[in-house]
């Protein structure tokens, strides 16, 4: 049995778990681990802020389906992870965070850079550990990966005291196999549940599938698509469900919820059956609960049964992974068609499209929605990582996501500053994939220091900064609900082109629609990272909008244009 230091055991375990890249930042309490990293077959990406490291690990995981790993030192290094861990927790990203801790003899003494990290992160991790002995490390790490991946995935933190990194212990991989996993066998839907679901489906005239992130996490895309086709059931996606099923499919409705398209929310309100797959009826999705989908019976399929009846009471809750449950349904359901319902939905959609900004002439103004739409047309295969705000919603509305994992965005926590670092992680996970950052001028400035990380790593990231001179989403709420009192929402920015150039990127500026294609072509031709600043219409708003607390069909719509589209703008 080889004797290794705790630090060596750490990297050995990570390598055996399949980790090839970690994102981190060194410091005193994690130095023994960094020293051993020199000899480990693992690439370390040096970030500029630990929050960035956590988002990178998150983006890495979301782009690849593998576990992302972030490393930080004790105290301030670890507390800088908090936002990133909460982001990963809310969006069910499998992540392992390794933090250094002061020596075990100093625990509880307020030693230099000591923070109770397991205490701080308890509510924002799926589980966490404090390891004070090298001999416990392998078992803890193996379990940490199993927990991060298992069931509904999530972030796990392992806090390792400095002496546990330095001490030697026998390393026995096999003996360290996780022992508590048997307690949580994968749930299996009962025959009775499947039969009841089938009976409800058979009776439904106007069903809608609500497609969530769980479809991607559970590898259920194919079977859900086949099921939707066999039953002729249209599907609406949550924000994180975009890309889980193809967006241009004839059954695809689009995004639901606060900024969902009018016809999607209308479809949900008119539906007589909702089949919710791997989604959690978030308040941004339901609007006012008492008037949510009033005519619909509801079936909820999820791997996490604590989600059942949390926000919306359902008629049937099926505890299981989406893939096996839908497989079970598909095996027994008789194919059918629903021409009336489909015709009704087509009519709803036609009514909405005249108000669509795509039908608006640009009159020389650069609309963010046009930018997103054109970007999608030019780079349909790209993976997009968005920040949070108006641009995020326009992206969700106007970029048609065909492929799984082609949209990476902070949904549950809505973390500004997420896009650039998460995109870096995504690019690291999938080096051959074209990755675009779409960020606002506000959020981009929160983590723009990571531009240097992209340069140091030589990553060919493409960055679109949608500059409207405002914290746009805040401004929009102030316009609608606070009488246009723009408190703290106008925001100044550096010259983004110069800023990017200072970091060593190649950068471009666009202020009219006609310049988009050329700038994008030039940006894509650059070997390293490149950035385009889009100077867009300043006081534009995202439509439609369901105000917080209103019913889904009480939407604020874009004012109907008096002059309809004569521009030939693409309305696809």
């Amino acid at each position, binding site marked *: 049995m080889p004797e290794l230091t705790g630090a060596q055991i750490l990297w050995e375990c990570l390598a055996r778990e399949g980790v090839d890249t970690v994102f981190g930042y060194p410091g005193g309490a994690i130095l023994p681990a960094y020293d051993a990293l020199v000899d480990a077959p693992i690439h370390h990406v040096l970030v500029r802020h630990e929050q960035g490291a956590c988002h990178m690990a998150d983006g890495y995981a979301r782009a690849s389906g593998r576990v992302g790993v972030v490393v930080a030192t004790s105290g301030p290094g670890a507390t800088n992870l908090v936002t990133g861990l909460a982001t990963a927790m809310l969006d069910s990203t499998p992540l392992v965070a390794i933090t250094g801790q002061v020596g075990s003899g100093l625990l509880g003494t307020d030693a230099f850079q000591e923070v109770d990290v397991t205490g701080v992160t308890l509510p924002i991790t799926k589980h966490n550990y404090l390891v004070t002995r090298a001999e416990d490390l392998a078992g803890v790490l193996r379990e940490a990966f199993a927990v991060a991946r298992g069931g509904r995935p999530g972030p796990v933190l392992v806090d390792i005291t400095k002496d546990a990194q330095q001490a030697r212990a026998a390393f026995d991989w096999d003996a360290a196999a996780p022992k508590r996993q048997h307690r949580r066998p994968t749930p299996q839907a009962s025959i009775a549940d499947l039969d009841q679901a089938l009976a409800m489906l058979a009776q439904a005239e106007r069903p809608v599938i609500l497609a969530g992130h769980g479809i991607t996490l559970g590898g259920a895309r194919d079977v859900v698509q086949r099921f939707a086709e066999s039953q002729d059931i249209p599907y609406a996606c949550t924000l994180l469900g975009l890309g889980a099923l193809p967006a241009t499919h004839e059954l695809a409705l689009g995004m639901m919820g606060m900024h969902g398209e009018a016809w999607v929310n209308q479809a949900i309100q008119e539906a007589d059956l909702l089949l919710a797959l791997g989604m959690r009826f978030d308040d941004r999705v339901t609007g006012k609960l008492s008037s949510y989908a009033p005519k619909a019976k509801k079936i909820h399929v999820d791997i*996490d049964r604590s989600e059942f009846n949390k926000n919306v009471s359902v008629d049937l809750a099926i505890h299981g992974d989406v893939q096996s449950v839908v497989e079970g349904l598909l095996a027994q359901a008789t194919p059918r068609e629903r021409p009336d319902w489909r015709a009704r939905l087509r009519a709803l959609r036609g009514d909405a499209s005249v108000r669509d900004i795509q039908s608006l002439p640009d009159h020389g103004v650069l609309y963010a929605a046009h930018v997103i739409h054109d970007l999608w047309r030019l780079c349909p295969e790209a993976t997009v990582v968005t920040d949070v705000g108006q641009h995020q919603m326009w992206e969700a509305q106007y970029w048609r996501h065909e492929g799984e994992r082609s949209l990476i965005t902070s949904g549950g926590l809505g973390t500004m500053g997420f896009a650039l670092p998460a995109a870096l992680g995504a690019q690291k996970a999938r080096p051959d994939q074209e990755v675009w950052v779409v960020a606002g001028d506000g959020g981009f400035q929160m983590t723009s220091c990571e531009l240097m990380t992209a340069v140091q790593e030589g990553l060919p990231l493409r960055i679109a900064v949608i500059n409207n001179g405002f914290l746009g989403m805040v401004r929009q709420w102030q316009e609608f609900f606070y009488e246009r009192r723009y408190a703290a929402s106008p925001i100044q920015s550096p010259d983004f082109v110069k800023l990017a150039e200072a970091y060593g990127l190649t950068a471009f500026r666009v202020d009219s629609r006609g310049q988009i294609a050329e700038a994008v072509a030039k940006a894509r031709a650059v070997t390293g990272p490149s950035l385009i600043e889009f100077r867009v219409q300043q006081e534009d708003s995202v439509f439609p909008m369901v105000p917080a607390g209103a019913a889904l069909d009480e939407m604020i719509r874009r004012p109907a244009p008096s002059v309809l589209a004569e521009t030939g703008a693409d309305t696809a």
Partner: protein
Amino acid sequence: MTESHCILALLDDEPGVLDRVAALCRRRAFNIQSLTVSPASEPGASRMTLVVEATEIGARRVVAHLEKLVNVQSVDLLQSGDLARDLCLARVACGPAARPAVLQLAEVFRARVVDLAADSLVLECTGNRTKVDRFIEVLRPYGLLDLGRSGAVAMARNSEPLALGIPA
């Protein structure tokens, strides 16, 4: 309608487990009535009885959340017919004159005298929560000088070992 629900769980006996249960209840705004933990008969495990004030659906959600904690071995929602016992120690102000009456009440509740002083005595009473509540109420007029209650310790009536999850 909310009512008391009794949840029984076996936990790994390791540091921080109670933190997790308490943090979970606080975070999800579950209303804890009582929480008792003691070593279980299995080595390495602790046995927890948690009483929450919740609707039936709410109680099931507590169970579903507890199930997700890595160091929870098993968890069960007890039915109303199951066994739950509370212990209370009550020091009652009572000089020689009141003593016979208090002792008579103690007898009715099968409480025992565990300490006796000139002007007070301590009674020990066990039973389900309603019984102990009533016991305290009848003593109150005499003057309760001190009161300690354990919170419920519970057990299912059937002999099935504790299993993960809610019975179907």
